[in-house]
């Protein structure tokens, strides 16, 4: 009984958040102010975090908030406010290539739907969501840092090189 109730509640929650995310995503590209667009993007990204929470993937959800809302979006806003961020509408935000973006995004939608359906079509969610438990952080770290330690190191080096490159570019002397 409880399981079925939870499933209904989860579906309702999913739908509400999904609608919010779609509206937010559309507003990101239609709104005529840079900062407003960035804030709508915050709505979309936090919506994704909420969806992860609904799937009881807390760790991914928190990472989403920490990385995207807390760091990437703040950096976005910081950058735009330092350079150009007028209050009120700006008319020159859309350039004339915006029509090309529509087929590209439709193609992306198609490819990603295909990948998800192809990869997980046979998977079934747990029948009774009440039994879903949090995945321990220890297990996540074991899964990542056991078999994927070397790729992780390689990634760290890529990031390190990017950081050093940024410093070199920023230094005038």
């Amino acid at each position, binding site marked *: 009984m409880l399981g079925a109730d939870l499933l209904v509640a989860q579906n309702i929650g999913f739908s509400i958040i999904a609608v919010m995310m779609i509206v937010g995503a559309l507003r990101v590209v239609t709104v005529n102010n840079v*900062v*407003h667009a960035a*804030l709508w993007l*915050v709505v979309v990204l936090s919506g994704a975090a909420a969806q992860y929470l609904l799937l009881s993937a*807390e*760790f991914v959800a*928190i*990472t989403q*908030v*920490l990385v995207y*809302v*807390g*760091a990437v*979006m*703040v*950096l976005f*806003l*910081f950058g735009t*406010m*330092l350079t150009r*961020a007028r*209050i*009120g509408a700006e008319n020159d935000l859309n350039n004339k290539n915006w029509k090309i973006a529509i087929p590209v995004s439709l193609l992306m939608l198609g490819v990603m739907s295909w990948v998800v359906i192809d990869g997980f079509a046979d998977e079934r969610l747990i029948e009774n969501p009440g039994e879903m438990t*949090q*995945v*321990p*952080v*220890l297990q996540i770290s074991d899964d990542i840092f056991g078999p994927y330690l070397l790729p992780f190191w390689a990634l760290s080096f890529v990031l390190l090189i990017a950081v050093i490159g940024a410093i070199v570019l920023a230094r005038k002397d």
Partner: protein
Amino acid sequence: MSASLLAADLPYWAQALLRVLGGVVAVLLPAGTIVYVFLFKMMSFMQSRLGPMEAGPYGSLQLFAEVGKWLQKEDITPERADRFIFKIAPLVVLASTFLLVAVVPFGPDAWFTDFEAGVFYMLAVSSVSVLGILIAGWASANKYSLLGGLRAAGQLIAYELPMVLAVIGVIIQAGTMNLQNIVFAQNAGSMFGWDGLGNPFILTQFVGFIIFMIAVQAELTQTPFDMPIAESELVSGYMTEYSGFRFLTFFIAEFATAGVFSLIASVLFLGGWGIPFAWFGWDTMDDVDGWMNVVGPLIMVTKMMLLSFVIMWVRFSYPRFREDQLQRFAWKVLVPVSLVNIMITAILKVAF
């Protein structure tokens, strides 16, 4: 908060309601206490004056007088401001505080959420307040506000890193990110076989504790890190254009966050709600008696007062950093020291 203390079979909505009420209390009570005891009274005593004395005995009702004053002030929005964003910005900052308090455990059963990755969650939601401050500065349509917001963002990003790195030492030592288990690890632990004091991490992680408190001071934009609201340069920074209730929201958020960060620091480094379990012969979490649900919050409040006293003490004692000194201090002192701290902790953890 004490839902499980009353009865385990409370309906879900009642538990949720109790938790919300508990959260409101856990945010507003520390804020009020800190403002009255430290901001009004201690600051006055340190400056050889009495502070507010008129409202109520010994000025104890001054807080209500202040709130009443702010509530009846006119709610002004600058003409060229971005109205909607201007209005939601203080709420974003306050929401971050409420999200923060959700992971703080107050007793063996007295918690809001028993988050598996509690420390990680705390670090993530504390960075949401930056967003509120940034858009507050931008939406005010005021150069001082914008500068203050940008300074705040730069500072908060810079000091987030030492804070994360300082906490990692504790996580390594406790072997868990769950705040409840960190409390347990400290109180059930022992130092060289002697368990009379448990093993509060302030002793082994003293460097981490100092870095964490410095980072908290900077996150709260308290002096000596108050460039974002430096009154002699920027009027009042991102808060310049705010008046009445919206200013009050910023004000409450500032001191409530001070209280919540003190709570978190006490959980991470001072043993949280616990007393050394050896005193009563408790071995596991289940052995802990029910009365700790009542005593625990009191212990937490005591430790919170102690740590916020330190925060306020520093605030009233030091002059302001310069902007470049601030960044240099974060990147060239705090980050390297905390990295070395992590390395030593990890080596010792493997060795013992």
